[in-house]
């Protein structure tokens, strides 16, 4: 069954500070949406709010995911329901190896379905991990390293996509996965992500500042966010227009004052 992420008039605050000021967006499985916008416009805030970070408080509006009220779910339930966020700044988890962590992400899914489940067998997990790591060009020795601890910026981004490949979500949000990746890595990771989208019929919300990643991950729709709102939506050409003209024409058009 195909599901969708449906965001209706979403408002959210960090502490007392309203950041999201009414977001409307519909992302269906099989669709790729790009989300662009100047620094500080609220893109990551949208991502965190959807993922259920406790510091981001939805104050109005609704988010429906696969027919359920997403905002009522805990962060882990959202993930198990099929929503995935590839973080702009992934946290380090000292003392927990990448392999142990990935195995737990699989086992938590299985045990949520069936509390008696003993978890994935070690050989089956090894096979799966090797296959996914090879697809994304990740050295196998990363499996034994503590998660994100001392990883370079680009290594963290690859590992985010490795996680996506492991949990196989229905809808993924990729928050600036392209930043920090070198030119070859950008291609490998984008192609890997694209293959997953196609194979799994995933939906995606790709947050980025640059056209580059969109050469590999071809969006069906492009949205521009400014000051906590989506101010413009269009096709792939909108991203090209931004690349050429920047944001000023949009600021003028929508009367947004540039922040100091």
């Amino acid at each position, binding site marked *: 069954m195909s599901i969708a992420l449906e965001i209706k008039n979403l408002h959210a605050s960090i502490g007392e500070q309203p950041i999201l000021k009414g977001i409307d967006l519909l992302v269906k499985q099989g669709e790729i949406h790009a989300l662009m916008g100047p620094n500080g416009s609220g893109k990551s805030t949208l991502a965190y709010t959807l993922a259920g970070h406790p510091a981001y408080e939805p104050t109005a509006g609704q988010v429906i995911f696969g027919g359920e009220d997403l905002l009522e779910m*805990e*962060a882990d339930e959202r*993930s198990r329901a099929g929503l995935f*966020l590839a973080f702009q700044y992934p*946290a380090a988890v000292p*003392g*927990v190896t990448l392999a142990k*962590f990935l195995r*737990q*992400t699989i086992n938590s899914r299985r045990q949520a379905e069936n509390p008696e489940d003993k978890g994935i067998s070690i050989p089956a997990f090894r096979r799966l991990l090797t296959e996914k790591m090879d697809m994304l060009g990740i050295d196998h020795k990363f499996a034994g390293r503590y998660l994100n601890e001392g990883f370079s910026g680009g290594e963290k981004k690859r590992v985010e996509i490795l996680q996506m490949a492991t949990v196989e979500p229905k809808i993924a949000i990729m928050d600036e996965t392209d930043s920090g990746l070198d030119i070859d890595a950008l291609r490998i990771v984008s192609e890997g992500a694209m293959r997953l989208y196609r194979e799994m019929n995933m939906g995606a919300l790709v947050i980025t500042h640059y056209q580059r990643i969109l050469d590999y991950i071809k969006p069906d729709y492009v949205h521009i966010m400014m000051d906590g709102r989506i101010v413009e939506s269009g096709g792939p050409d909108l991203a090209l227009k931004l690349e050429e003209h920047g944001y000023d024409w949009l600021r003028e058009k929508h009367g947004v004052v540039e922040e100091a």
Partner: protein
Amino acid sequence: MTTFTKDAVEKLSASLNEPAWMLEFRLKAFEIYEATPMPTTKDEAWRRTNLRQLNFDEFGPSINGDAATDAVIPSYLGEQLTTDKAGGNLLQIDGVTKKYNLSDELKAQGVIFCDMHEAVAQHPDLIKQYFMTKGVQVTEGKFAALHGAFWCGGTFLYVPKNVKADAPMHSVLWSENGRTFTHTLAVVETGAEAILMDEYASAEGEVPGLHNGVIELLVGDNASLVYAGLQDFGQNVWQFNHERGRVGRDGKLDWVTSIMGTRLTKAFQTLELDQQGAWGRMSGIFFTNGRQHLDMDTEQIHNAGDTVSDLLYKGALKEKSRVVWQGMIKALPGSQRIDGFQANRNLMLDKTARADSIPGLEIEADDVRCTHASAVGKLDEEELFYLMSRGIPRKTAVEMSVQGFFDPLMRRIPYEGIQERIFGRIVEKIG
């Protein structure tokens, strides 16, 4: 009830059929015990541990023969640690041996691994030479003297010159009657190598119990010992320990301590690097909850130059438990080019718990590198969110995060089975 009297010393020694020299040793220790006042919070080392609630004489010694023969002990205790190599296994209940084996290979190499009473009977020369002579002294304090007088049961390991015992020795001391005075003595001669896993445990009980133990680890020149002392007594037990490791020229002592149990533990742990090139590492893993009180005094003593000591103690604290760690690095005059490190990191799982970290340096040489660090932290919410965002429920995320905190130290325990078991206990304690 028999309590700590001279008469009780004689009775204990007689029940063990000990030679006269050991009785003499005990009686001397008893004299010192009697002459030493009970420590109070006015003594520097006891400032943070109050024994007022301890009705000491009520415990009395553990006289041989009162060990329950049908004690129910967890099945994993006393098992062989590796499937490929047979080493030695020794299981004692209240200091009385219940199960024992040592591989023919190790026997042929001259390795001695047996209970302490067997060692007194069979290897008197070694015991006279090493028992509370080079490691812990009966004069070190009230509880060291008490132990000298009333010690009962424990483990003796002797590895002769240049013998590399590649299979582990596993010793388990289970307490059923709640009174144990076990003694561990490991002697690893020049060029020899050994691994000793030493477990202390009992079931939860209602009546207060006592463990008064001594651990002596003597590592010769060019020798190496990996020692893990793993304690998981019930929370009815009061524990008073004196422990000392000594390392000879270019020797290595890798010393891991795990503390999960007891109502109260006061442990003195000293590492002495006696000769050039000696290396010692002390790793501490502890988790306290309820009203547990854990007070550790550690010392890293550099008696020679070009020696390295590295101490890292990590603990998690819950509820109203309290942990005190007081560490000291000492360098004697002339101990040049030494490298000493000490750190204590505590993870506070509840606001009501309390931890005190008191690092210290007494350095009388000038060309030294000594550093210390201590830190308290809480669970990292960003880390937990990250784990949860991948579908891991909060409870599991907390368990992973706490396990992660201990993981680098846990890896220093050479057996995965034991690591898993301690991780299991940690998860149980997180609740």
